[in-house]
């Protein structure tokens, strides 16, 4: 990597005034996304809106001011997942009275669509013009069309960054992976990083041949904290044991022990599928050979196993990089940096980071906004009435 005298690295800190100026567009955008054009008349909702807006913008301000990305992203990302789970479960209990999906719910297409099911639906949709998921195409909460539109938009703007700036499940294991200061399990055989691609291959093939969302039926660990099929047979009982075990193992225990996002990095078929969108996305994380002192800190801390000695030699993170910024924050020599493909590798590096942060943070804030406000309102209701429903 050639470097001239005027080459700039990422600055450690910005002045307060300059930071405030840079944060103004985000304030405007988050205000638009959180209010959706309507200031709520209800006091509780207005309070929730104000708190959410303040919380989000303080985090973005700190990101811009300190030059640290993951430190503040992770707070909002974990908040998104926790609030999503609370909001989703309470919503289900309000509507259905239970987290369990009955046969009648499935026939009526009342199952909210999730982005993880997208790879399984593509081939059957192309071949048979059928969506193999018991949800509604348009109109209802988390309809199939709305999730596809969101997925296309976020994939175009962030690539696999979706997994660290959009996915409402990823924050759970991200949170668990931060419990201990040091990992108890350090060495994980690199061959397991191929497993998500194998899971993807199998579930896509099985879904195409059987015309049913096989991953959702058998493997999705997140059904444990969202919704699941009512246990009415031994087969469903076995399915339940499998997905609960996967949740405990991959989302709780292994992230705690390894300090990595093991479900995302070693199992998730959607993550594997999403990795290919990194090829067409404009943003990437690069590694400066000249600055790198081969301390391997980035290799050890990457949550999705996307950095190896080979990738350092190539000067870029692997295809599965979720652009969370953890390596960028941790590098003692600022050798890792956000970059826009096709532009200079030695100057304006902080501008590239800002260019990435605006869409990425807006996506995260938009995803989290509704759930965070909902949880604040429900918490107020819980304090006032003793019930969140």
């Amino acid at each position, binding site marked *: 990597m050639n470097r001239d005298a005027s080459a700039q690295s990422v600055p450690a800190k910005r002045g307060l005034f300059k930071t405030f100026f840079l944060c103004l567009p985000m304030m405007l955008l988050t205000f638009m996304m959180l209010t959706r054009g309507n200031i709520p008349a209800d006091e509780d909702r207005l309070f929730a809106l104000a708190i959410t807006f303040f919380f989000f913008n303080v985090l973005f301000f700190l990101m811009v001011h300190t030059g640290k990305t993951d430190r503040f992203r992770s707070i909002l990302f974990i908040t998104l997942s926790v609030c999503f789970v609370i909001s989703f479960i309470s919503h289900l209990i309000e509507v259905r009275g239970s987290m369990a999906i009955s046969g009648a719910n499935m026939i009526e297409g009342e199952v909210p669509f999730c982005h993880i099911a997208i790879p399984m639906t593509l081939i059957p949709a192309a071949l048979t013009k059928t969506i193999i998921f018991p949800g509604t195409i348009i109109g209802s909460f988390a309809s199939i069309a709305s999730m596809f539109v969101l997925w296309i938009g976020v994939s175009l703007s962030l690539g696999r960054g979706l997994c660290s700036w959009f996915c409402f499940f990823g924050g759970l294991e991200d949170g668990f992976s931060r419990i201990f200061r040091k990992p108890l399990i350090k060495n994980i055989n690199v061959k397991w990083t*191929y*497993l998500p*691609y*194998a899971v993807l*291959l*199998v579930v896509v*093939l*099985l879904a195409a*041949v059987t015309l049913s969302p096989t991953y959702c039926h058998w493997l999705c660990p997140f059904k444990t904290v969202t919704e699941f099929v009512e246990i009415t047979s031994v087969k469903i009982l076995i399915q339940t044991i499998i997905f609960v075990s996967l949740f405990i193992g991959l989302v709780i225990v292994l992230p705690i022990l390894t300090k990595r996002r093991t479900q995302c990095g070693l199992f998730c078929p959607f993550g594997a599928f999403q990795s290919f969108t990194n090829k067409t996305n404009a943003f990437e994380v690069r590694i400066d050979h000249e600055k790198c002192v081969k301390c391997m800190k980035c290799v050890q801390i990457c949550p999705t196993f996307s950095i190896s000695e080979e990738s350092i030699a190539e000067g870029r993170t692997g295809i599965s990089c979720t652009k969370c910024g953890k390596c960028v924050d941790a590098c003692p020599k600022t050798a890792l940096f956000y970059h826009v493909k096709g532009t200079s590798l030695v100057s304006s590096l902080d501008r590239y980071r800002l260019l990435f942060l605006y869409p990425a943070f807006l996506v995260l804030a938009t995803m989290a906004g509704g759930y965070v406000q909902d949880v604040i309102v429900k918490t107020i209701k819980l304090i006032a009435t003793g019930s969140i429903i």
Partner: protein
Amino acid sequence: MLEGFILGLSNGVTCVAYCAPVLIPYLLGEGKRISQNSALTVQFLLGRLSGYLLFAVFAWGINHSILQWMSKPDLLIGGAYVIFSVLLIFYGFFKTTTSCAASRINGLRHKWVAIMPFSLPIIAGFVTGLSFCPPFLLAFTGAIERTSLLKSMLFFFAFFLGTSIFFIPTPFVGIFRGFSTLKMVGKMAAGLIGVYYLYSGIVMLIGGISRI
């Protein structure tokens, strides 16, 4: 048929990943045109199909000789599923070295080329069809379950179709770079399908035991 096709699909990547490096020197000699390469690939696949169909007949024979005498065939077939699926899981996730069955004919290559130059792709295909790898053994068990010769042959034919889809690009040799990644993903996919068959085998065993 559907089960055979799924089993073939899930293992086709591994078959190609392991066998193509051995077969390509035979099938796709340097400088040959895509049309010639395609013809050789078809010969290879026909040889492979004949190997499978031979075993379909053998499976039908076992069904009519051994299983007809047994009062609880579920136990035998379920047990076979469990054993072979465990082998497939081991092969998919833990076994590090696997070779293509066609490599067995390496020593005979020059003799065959001298005597019958056009037969080599067919023989290579036939030998891969006789490979006793866990996916093949599972397919064999599935074929034994079929009560008629036609169903047994159709099951193996579906298995053949599933694996053959992945051989379609072989005339375009250039895409076969990065074999190590393909091998790893293919093997793990086979291992995952092994888990599915393990479940089927256990269900069958429970069914057999409950009827005793």
